[in-house]
């Protein structure tokens, strides 16, 4: 908290700390996002939306993971991703997700790839960066789950081709929702910051 900086306009600038360290704030964020992941998995129509497509359901469970890695760095994303893997492993009905390798590894990787995507574009444009992070995170999930499923012989080529349209829609939806969440959260934090007295009282806007 202490090393966050607030410009005079009250705009939020992210804290400068190593992305690979675990602060109190990061632990709590990972915990809350993991709680969200667990919760979403068990509420009907929220975590897994039943759809009449070959995959049977679209997931929104990767959203907390991507939000975690965009806001607090790869470690938070990867820890939340572990919980995503855990819930999908525990509620799995098919052999595909009863394989721990397929349940956990792609989901942990979401945290890493979406953070890399965000960090690459962060300097240029935070909105575009969070949209890209959403799309990349969702694509990581699809590509690695399907790829590992194919490599380990659970899926066939025909099935994978059938899933591609849904994967594209999921990636676009993730990009939109992640941008909404990240940008509105930063707006809220910026507003919180404005209430702090970072400059002399008589120059404050209120």
């Amino acid at each position, binding site marked *: *908290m202490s090393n966050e900086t607030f410009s005079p306009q009250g705009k939020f600038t992210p804290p400068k700390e190593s992305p690979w*360290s*675990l*602060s*109190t*704030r990061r*632990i*709590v*964020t*990972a*915990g*809350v*996002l*993991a*709680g*969200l992941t*667990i*919760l979403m998995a068990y*509420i*009907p*129509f*929220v975590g897994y*939306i039943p*759809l009449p497509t070959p995959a049977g359901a*679209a997931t*929104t469970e990767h*959203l*907390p993971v991507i*939000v975690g890695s965009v*806001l607090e760095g790869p470690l938070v994303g990867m*820890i939340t991703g572990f*919980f995503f893997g855990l819930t999908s492993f525990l509620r799995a009905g098919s052999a595909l997700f009863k394989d721990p390798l397929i349940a956990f590894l792609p989901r942990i990787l979401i945290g890493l790839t979406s953070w890399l995507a965000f960090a690459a574009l962060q300097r240029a444009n935070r909105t575009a960066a969070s949209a890209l992070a959403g799309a990349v995170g969702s694509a990581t999930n699809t590509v690695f789950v399907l790829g590992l499923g194919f490599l380990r012989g659970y899926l066939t080529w025909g099935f994978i081709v059938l899933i591609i349209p849904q994967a594209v829609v999921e990636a676009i*939806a993730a990009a939109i*929702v992640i941008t*909404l*969440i990240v940008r*509105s*959260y930063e707006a*809220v*934090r910026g507003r*919180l910051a404005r209430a702090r007295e970072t400059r002399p009282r008589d120059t404050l806007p209120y």
Partner: protein
Amino acid sequence: MIEISRHISFGQYVDNGSRLTRLDPRAKILCFVIVVAAVTYISHFASLALCLLFCLFLQWLSRLPLRYVLQGMRMFISFLLILFAFQVLFYTSSTQAASTIWHWGVLTVSWEGIIHSTQVDLRVIFLYYLTSLLMLTTSLVDLADGAEALLRPLRRLGLPVHELVMVFVVALKFVPLLITEVERLSIAQATRGVRFGRGNPLQRIRALSGIIVPLFMSGLQRVEMLSTAMEARCYRAGYRGWRRSKLRALHWNRSDSLALVCSALLCALLIALNLVSPF
């Protein structure tokens, strides 16, 4: 969807000073792990009966009202009954033709299917019971302390054990809070005329984002509050060279060793019975 929290008593802690509550959390977790491992392995009725006896014994030790525990399991068991019907109807094996009772298309009811599904579901009920009993007799803080003490050797490998346990604790603590939040949000959105679970996929996703985005916002705002509160109380994580001490240190008593020996014996007995018994 709205009344979720009223049906879930899972994960609540009842401090009634019974022997189970007073057991060292490390001993409880170890016993839990080995008994659960044994219960997942067994499949025959003889060992399941022994398991039932053991559960009754634990229930007596815990001095919890039986009605309360069963009420918490009511929803789970009704869900399991529906699952049971499906399991029986879609059961397939090469030897079931001999015991078929009723057959229509792909649906078959056979004695073999019924017996197999009963065994599987009894096992699941025992597992659920053991887990809920562990949660009912151990506070979350104790559970976290015990897990941290047991996982301490992993620190040698460079794993941040304390931090990961903390994440678990926060996640479990936040689930009920977030459930009430979801209820509040879905009521608020329903008042505004949003319909959930209807319409085409696009409409469904739009209705959902009205819940998901505010849910994330309130969760992240709670992060802000909680982490400030923790840091105000001098909580430091991931800080090399600090050794955290505990307000309540764990003590390993003779009864803990006794519990551990008893559950190890029980596991051996369960597995032996499962190997010997014919059905």
